[in-house]
């Protein structure tokens, strides 16, 4: 009788090339390596300097997303890149992919998009895989029961050269989310509530496995939203056991196995879920049925509250460091302790990012904006996560709903999530954003970010202020 294993244990164990010893970490094999323009150029330079080839170009795939513009195409159907630095960075990625034989999803092509949106969409992301990218939100892919985590540029070089990483085995943490979500409350609210409860460092050193009835009930896109923000909870990775929802999503996608290969893969995937009695180093839990839509008031993702709750006061804080953190966050945000955020005016609404830019996110925002208008003076950016999402939204007529409401319908990319292009929030202005980070200056110098679901963001677009989306859903 073998010891019961967790999902994480099974994926990890199946990828150990050389086990950990007293002196060395494990050599871990990587099945899929995704690259983008920002965190890869220095790694390719290193390879070139040392005269090393990319070991498995067939397990490596590039896209352009971070520094790309999302402005409309010109009359030739091209997305013009005006910023010379971005232009140079994109050109460098092209050169690197050509020279090393790596498939690249070129800016504006049908396959291009945010790296964490295109992996699943293309069927590249599959259960049981190890997946890395020079990007912390690689945790997104864990929604499929893959072990997926972000790495730095030195490690990008390691994977390019050897398809392996040197890793110590992380600990596991079971995250149980039970109950049924109320209408108007979604995956984004679950993860924001979890991070508010356990803090931005709560998961450090651990891999989360999300489980429980509320997680099982979620679609793949919703599970991705939750796994995406595992890193905001301090965990390097988050995983969900693959089930029929997962298999149905993967089946038939371009890079997924087909026919007999798919059947063989399916047989393996079915063995992945954690065994009965498997041990986790740590446990967390959340009651989904009592959740309200969530919103953040501060400058890290754990500074979140139910949308109808007041901003915490210094007296609510457990220690001096958190009191100081609260004070400086409120000073930056221009919010008052003890006051509700409901009704607070906003200036910008951003619906996009690898957290919430998939088709279901756009549908939920469109449900609010249909036959309504964006409030006067509010800028609303709707940025699909990929060109395929964009095309599907257009086929469904969502773009027409956004445009009729007065929102901007833009090209795919990271956009205002990190403001590397011109999609920024002006200094001192308030943005409700469906993205994942409300750090000081993240959306532009001086920008004040309130994280929320696409539904809550869309509600604010209509009223021009922080609004409980549940009040707008019956009409």
């Amino acid at each position, binding site marked *: 009788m073998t010891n019961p294993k967790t999902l994480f244990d099974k994926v990890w164990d*199946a990828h150990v*090339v*050389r086990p950990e010893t*007293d*002196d*060395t*970490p494990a*050599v871990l*094999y990587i*099945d899929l390596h995704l690259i983008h323009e920002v*965190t890869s150029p*220095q790694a390719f*330079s290193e390879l070139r300097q040392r005269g090393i080839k990319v070991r498995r170009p067939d*397990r490596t*795939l590039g896209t352009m997303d971070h*520094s790309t513009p999302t402005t409309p195409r010109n009359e030739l159907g091209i997305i013009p890149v005006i*910023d010379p*630095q*971005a232009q*140079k*960075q994109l050109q460098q990625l092209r050169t690197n992919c050509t020279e090393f034989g790596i*498939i690249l999803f070129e800016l504006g092509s049908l*396959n291009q998009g945010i790296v964490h949106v295109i992996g699943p969409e293309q069927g590249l992301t*599959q259960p*049981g*895989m190890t997946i890395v990218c*020079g990007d*912390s939100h690689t945790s997104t892919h864990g929604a499929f029961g893959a072990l997926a985590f972000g*790495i*730095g*540029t*030195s*490690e990008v070089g390691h994977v390019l*050269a050897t*398809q*392996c*990483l*040197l890793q110590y085995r992380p600990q596991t943490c079971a995250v149980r989310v039970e109950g049924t979500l109320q209408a108007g409350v979604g995956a984004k609210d679950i993860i924001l509530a979890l991070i508010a409860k356990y803090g931005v*460092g709560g998961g*450090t*050193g651990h891999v989360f496995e999300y489980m429980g009835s509320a997680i099982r009930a979620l679609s793949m896109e919703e599970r991705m939203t939750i796994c995406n923000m595992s*890193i905001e909870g301090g965990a390097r990775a988050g995983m969900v056991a693959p089930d029929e929802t997962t298999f149905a999503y993967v089946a038939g996608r*371009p*890079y997924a*196995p087909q026919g007999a*290969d798919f059947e063989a*893969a399916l047989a*393996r995937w079915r063995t992945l879920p954690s065994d009965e009695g498997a041990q986790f180093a740590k446990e967390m839990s959340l009651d989904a049925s009592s959740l309200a839509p969530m919103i953040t008031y501060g400058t*890290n993702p754990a500074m979140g509250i139910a949308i109808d709750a007041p901003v915490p006061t210094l007296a609510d804080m457990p220690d001096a*460091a958190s009191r*100081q*953190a609260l004070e400086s966050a409120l000073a930056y945000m221009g919010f008052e302790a003890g006051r509700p955020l409901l009704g607070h005016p906003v200036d910008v609404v951003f619906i996009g990012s690898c957290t919430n830019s998939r088709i279901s996110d756009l549908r939920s925002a469109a449900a609010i904006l249909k036959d309504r208008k964006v409030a006067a003076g509010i800028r609303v950016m709707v940025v699909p996560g990929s060109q395929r999402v964009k095309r599907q939204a257009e086929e469904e007529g969502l773009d027409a709903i956004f445009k009729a409401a007065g929102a901007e319908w833009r090209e795919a990319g990271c956009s205002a999530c*990190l*403001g*590397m292009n011109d999609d920024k929030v002006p200094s001192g202005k308030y943005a409700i954003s469906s993205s994942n*980070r409300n*750090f*000081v*200056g*993240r959306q532009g110098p001086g920008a004040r970010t309130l994280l929320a679901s696409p539904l809550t963001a869309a509600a604010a677009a209509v009223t021009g202020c922080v609004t409980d989306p549940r009040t707008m859903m019956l009409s």
Partner: protein
Amino acid sequence: MEPITTFSGKAVALPIENIDTDQVIPASYLKVTDKAGLAEGLFQAWRYLPDGSLNPEFPLNRPEALGASILVAGRNFGCGSSREHAPWALQGYGFRAVVAPSFADIFRSNALKIGLLPVAVDEETYHELLSHIAEDPGTTIALDLPNQRLVMPGGRAVSFPIDGFARHCLVHGVDQLGFLQQQEDAIIAFEAQHPVALNTLREA
């Protein structure tokens, strides 16, 4: 990489928790294709005033902090983005170590790769360091990597944990990529039996 063993340096304190890598180096500096110019953007929002001049109030800008090579910061340092630009910027500015009660996982791993030491100390030592620096700005701390010891200004030595393999590589100048390349036979053997090989990339 140059081997790292012992060194001492001037310490500067940034006693803030959860300093994220967007604060260490904002996205506008990430458009480089090399590592040049990153030090300029280090702690940009805090270090500069809106007109672009240095903020005299910011700890790094105080005269007594000039030439500091050890940063003392609050817990969960380096959370957020995986950008290796953050340790590059710190190193480019002249830092050789960051001392904090805890570090975010990816930052710690990235820092170790480039020889910027992430030195985790207990809360008590952290607060003691803060008061030393407050009393005597420009105070010096010594670090001994082979023995994993930090020597406080008063002479008290505390040990700190560090990943043993990374320490070995840093102390002996061992190149981690070179080490991985030496695993080639094991990697080939692994690939030959790895079932996910069925799913290697195919043309769409």
